[in-house]
């Protein structure tokens, strides 16, 4: 039985919603007729739900994965920190303009080890979504992230970033304060950071907004996430000159974790609970925690300069071309 039956259902999750409704009805019947035992019916329905979640996971299209990555009940950065870490202290501000609520960060302990966590944060209701600017950071967000990374480097603590953004915010003030420069600076500084860096795509990985905190020794992707150069909607609008081709664009962009792992652009896929991370926050967080710890363990003893060189070499190999 899921620990967290979700509140909102995507179109392809409707069969599960119906099964939940049947359970509700059965329970009501049980209240009316206390003499009849309905428990076996409920158990049977719950088994069917579990099967259905498995079934959905098996045949997800790229576009459905995009939808899952944006599921309104999906756990965000702070949720993962709550479930995975202890002693989390959030740190604010870029020491320059303001505190960007779309980008959060701070020290926390993962199995006793101090780590700097940084990630985009989305809101969980309408008001909070606005406060968090839908996970779209401004330049000050990227500069806060960089400040925290430098802080971690100074005290020799590893950096773990959790990426979940529909993109860097395309606003007037963002441009005035140098959105491009902020992201460029982060990419440049991250690739030469002396401490271990692990990046995880936990939701949406859209373009420069994601890469701005996405350059690491290890880049992991959770199972139902996407990572590419543009969102399928915008890709459809530019290349197909229509908003209607987002499903096709999602397929053509090859943006799923499986594709990205296949290309060698990410290092590992972190499995999610059947049906998606929103079905079981604890399970999702535990799997992620172990993946982070294992990767950290593998890279933490490499001498810093060697690790930086390996990072540069790793990204330097990416691309495809012919030599004639």
């Amino acid at each position, binding site marked *: 039985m899921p620990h967290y039956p979700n509140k909102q259902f995507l179109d392809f999750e409707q069969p599960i919603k119906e099964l939940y409704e049947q359970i509700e009805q059965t329970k009501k019947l049980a209240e009316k007729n206390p003499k009849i035992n309905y428990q076996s019916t409920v158990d049977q329905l719950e088994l069917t739900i579990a099967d259905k979640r498995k079934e959905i996971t098996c045949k997800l299209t790229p576009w459905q994965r995009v939808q899952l990555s944006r599921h309104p009940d999906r756990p965000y950065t702070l949720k993962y920190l709550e479930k995975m870490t202890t002693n989390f202290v959030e740190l604010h501000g870029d020491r320059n303009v303001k505190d960007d609520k779309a980008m959060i960060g701070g020290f926390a302990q993962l199995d006793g080890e101090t780590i700097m966590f940084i990630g985009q944060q989305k809101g969980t209701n309408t008001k909070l979504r606005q406060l968090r600017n839908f996970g779209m950071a401004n330049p000050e967000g990227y500069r806060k992230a960089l400040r925290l990374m430098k802080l971690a480097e100074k005290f020799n603590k590893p950096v773990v970033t959790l990426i979940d953004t529909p993109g860097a915010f395309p606003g007037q003030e963002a*441009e005035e304060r140098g959105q*491009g*420069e902020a992201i460029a600076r982060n990419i440049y500084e991250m690739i030469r950071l002396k401490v271990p860096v692990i990046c995880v795509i936990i939701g949406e990985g859209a373009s420069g907004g994601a890469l701005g905190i996405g350059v690491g020794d290890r880049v992991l992707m959770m199972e139902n996430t996407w990572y590419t150069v543009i969102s399928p909607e915008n890709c459809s609008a530019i290349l197909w000159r229509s908003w209607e081709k987002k499903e096709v664009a999602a397929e053509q962009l090859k943006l799923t974790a499986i594709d990205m792992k296949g290309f060698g652009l990410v290092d590992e896929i972190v499995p999610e609970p059947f049906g998606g991370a929103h079905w079981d926050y604890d399970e999702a967080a535990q799997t992620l925690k172990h993946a982070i710890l294992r990767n950290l363990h593998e890279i933490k003893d490499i001498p810093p300069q060697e690790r930086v060189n390996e990072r540069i070499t790793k990204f*330097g190999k990416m*691309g495809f071309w012919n030599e004639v």
Partner: protein
Amino acid sequence: MKKERDEDFEANLSGNENSDAARSRWFKRIKKGILTSTSEKKETPEGLWAKCPECNYICTTTELNEGLYVCPKCNYHHRIGSEEYYEMLFDNDEYEEHFDNIVSTDFLGFTDLKPYSKRLEEIHSKTDLKDSMRIASGKINGQGLVIACMDFEFIGGSLGSVMGEKFSRAVDYCIEHKLPFLVISKSGGARMMESAFSLMQLAKTSGKLSQLSDAKIPYISLLTDPTFGGISASFGMLGDLNIAEPGALIGFAGPRVIKETIKKDLPPGFQRSEFLLDHGFLDFIVDRKILKQKLSQLITLFNN
């Protein structure tokens, strides 16, 4: 007019700049075909006149060419390609081109309105360009320099694997020969047809710049009209010096996207070079006519 200019880098990025379907048809042809007989046909040599998109001033192409493609009336800097920049900057137009054997390939089998492979074929048959960036080394006023220059003509100067690889090898070349590095940017952003591979070029090029920096070799980033997206979010903004041509549109997100997001009109001059200088993101703006002189001045200062 301006509106059209604001938007067309995106059209170029999608490679649809020449498609008739993209343009609206405002007249209807009554009779089909050409009615003038061949004997009556009048020949007008092409490319004799050039019109300034900014002030509509018309001058001969020779005049424009001699004036380094700058409008004699309003100082509008026409968009030019690598060939023109190399001719303008290298002494006696002498330079050696490098890594031109690296060409794009359709690894992903990407198909939008047409397959990426077909797009590449078409552009190869239309122009002499191999890809959206060319690398050349030579001398300017007697001092050695490596110039990586983009060609907007080639899928909107988009950043793909080939640009990333050429850029990387150019950096290695600079380190090996201890030559300063100039990058002339003119691009709509990342090449969508290469999906995440094009995104990773941002990290790839930044990694190489980190090595260039460790080798203490000067890197100058010259931004020209237009420079957007992945370029401004990577090496475009990472110069030891960031400079730009006057009036160039430079930014992360395109003006149309921003307008749609904030649902407000953007202030005049938004995202132009002068705006960036004002906000502290450029070291200076340089007129094309004094570009060579200014660059050699800088190289002297660095080399001294």
